[in-house]
């Protein structure tokens, strides 16, 4: 005897497609529009202008080291003739990470406050993280068809667990006496959240965001398989054509993009703390 989960899931996917098509279409359109907008914005100025802008931003966020690193990373992508693909990938990661954080952050705080919520979420997160990523791509492609949207959706599924786990950990780790202080001075729960818990949780949250970005980037590359474009498509092309040079160039560009996003996000969140 053989049990075929597909026999159950396929009708569900079909049913979703048949009954929720308008909603799914709207989601798809919104994601595509936002992605397109960001891509357009990135590609609008000549590459050297954008590199200069990012370098300045890097200085503001993290100092000289960040500036040099950011400029080198982007220059590499440009020199290797992977500028458009890199910008596509960055846009994709930005959108996916923003949505992942939007989902994971509030849920993570909720789970940190209620043990039961965490108990329910934990196995779900385990499954989300252990199922091979391209398995998500299948239903995502069936529902949203080929292109960038299923890639974003699959990336979100992959990016939520680390962010959620570390958000819960971060908020659990806020010292009890600091929370008691907030109550003892008559602070509102929202004030305690923003002025006491959030600053105390930031170091762990930065790790969570960093993991979210790196895992999303890994997924976005894989999403090259479903026609998401970007650096993933270049890597896939290198693989299918057995072009070692192209594969290596695109692979290193992914590393460059990862470094860039990691350092900038870290600087943005931690920079003020050194003051």
């Amino acid at each position, binding site marked *: 005897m053989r049990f075929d989960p597909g026999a159950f899931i396929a009708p569900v996917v079909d049913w979703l497609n048949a009954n929720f098509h308008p909603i799914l279409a709207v989601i798809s359109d919104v994601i595509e529009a936002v992605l397109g907008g960001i891509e357009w914005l990135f590609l609008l100025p000549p590459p050297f202008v954008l590199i200069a802008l990012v370098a300045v931003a890097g200085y503001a966020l993290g100092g000289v080291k960040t500036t040099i690193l950011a400029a080198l990373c982007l220059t590499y992508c440009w020199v290797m003739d992977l500028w458009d693909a890199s910008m596509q990938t960055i846009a994709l990661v930005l959108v996916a990470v923003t949505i992942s954080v939007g989902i994971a952050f509030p849920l993570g705080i909720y789970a940190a406050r209620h043990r039961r919520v965490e108990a329910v979420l934990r196995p779900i997160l385990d499954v989300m993280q252990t199922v091979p990523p391209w398995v998500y791509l299948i239903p995502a492609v069936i529902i949203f068809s080929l292109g960038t949207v299923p890639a974003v959706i699959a990336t979100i599924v992959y990016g939520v667990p680390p962010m959620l786990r570390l958000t819960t950990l971060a908020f659990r780790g806020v010292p009890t006496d*600091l929370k*008691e202080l907030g109550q*003892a001075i*008559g602070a*509102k729960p929202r*004030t305690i959240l923003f002025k006491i818990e959030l600053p105390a949780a930031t170091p762990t949250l930065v790790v969570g965001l960093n993991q979210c970005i790196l895992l999303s980037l890994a997924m976005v590359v894989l999403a090259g398989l479903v026609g998401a474009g970007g650096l993933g498509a270049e890597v896939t092309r290198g693989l299918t054509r057995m072009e070692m040079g192209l594969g290596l160039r695109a692979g290193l560009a992914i590393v460059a993009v990862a470094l860039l996003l990691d350092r900038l996000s870290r600087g943005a969140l931690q920079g003020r703390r050194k003051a």
Partner: protein
Amino acid sequence: MENAEVLIDCQSVWKVFGDRNAEAIEAITSQGLSKRDVLRDYGCVVGVSDASLQVRRGEIFCIMGLSGSGKSTLIRLLNRLIEPSLGTVLVKGQDISKMDAAALRRTRAEHIGMVFQSVALLPQRNVLENAAFGLEVQGIPRDERNRAAAAALAKVGLSDWTKHYPSELSGGMQQRVGLARALAADPEIILMDEPFSALDPLIRRQLQDEFRQLTKELGKSAVFITHDLDEAIRIGDRIAIMKDGALIQVGTAEDIVMDPADQYVADFVAGISRLHLIKAHSVMVPVADWDGPVDDLPRCDPEADIDALIAQITETSADALAVEEDGRVVGVVSVRNLLLGVRGEAGADPIGAEA
């Protein structure tokens, strides 16, 4: 002080921890179960059992107990950081367990300051911002709150450190910031949860004296938690001894040392120096029990402590001192009475007259 307004009135308060605390409380009220019964029958831990105390305006009230005695739980019941299972806590006549969230926040912000053992300073804020934090969450404008915080920091001697960060300060200085933060909001009552326990002995003594002086100067009331009886005696106007969640004796340092309620308290006070605690009126014997002439004896005040009496008696050739109140001799303190006093035994012992 007996006539001063009662600021905190804690009436038969219980705190029971555990999943079945409601049932446990029910059993305690209806059957009078003991702490041990509650643990055995309901698996619940009694944190505070039937604690009653009053803190009056201008008074420093020390709660002394060893770790696990429930003193930290008790102090958190006073500002409802922990909900009492049973009993009422009145702050300035208002039952805080009946307050809604907004009223409770207002009471905490305006009337009750708190200082923590771990100091609980926010590491990303400088000293001034930390001291002003209580006012900041009340929505007080920056200029005004910074002025109040700077004034509070000046009171604790940290005017030169406002721009520094907590990590740059020593433990003693950090705790001064904690105290300044509590003072900045100008509350009538300050709850001190073992504030000096983690400090070096020398710094601790210095802070104890400063704290007592400052509290008296500003006319604040304080509830001060400590596991150190010496500290309680140095600081407290009244002391409550806590054991297994219950207050077993409440009184002045002299009451507790001279007349311990039970063996536990007696063991505790055994090592305490009586020199500054016991006063002439406690060790003196009536004039009638004194054989010799009274008129030639040097005079002393009934409130003079043993240390002062010993100094006085060794400077003169007399064997005894006459205790004089309102121009009348009310008793006699002999060398023998002083020695008994040092051991913590009260006078009024006729043998004292033999000397």
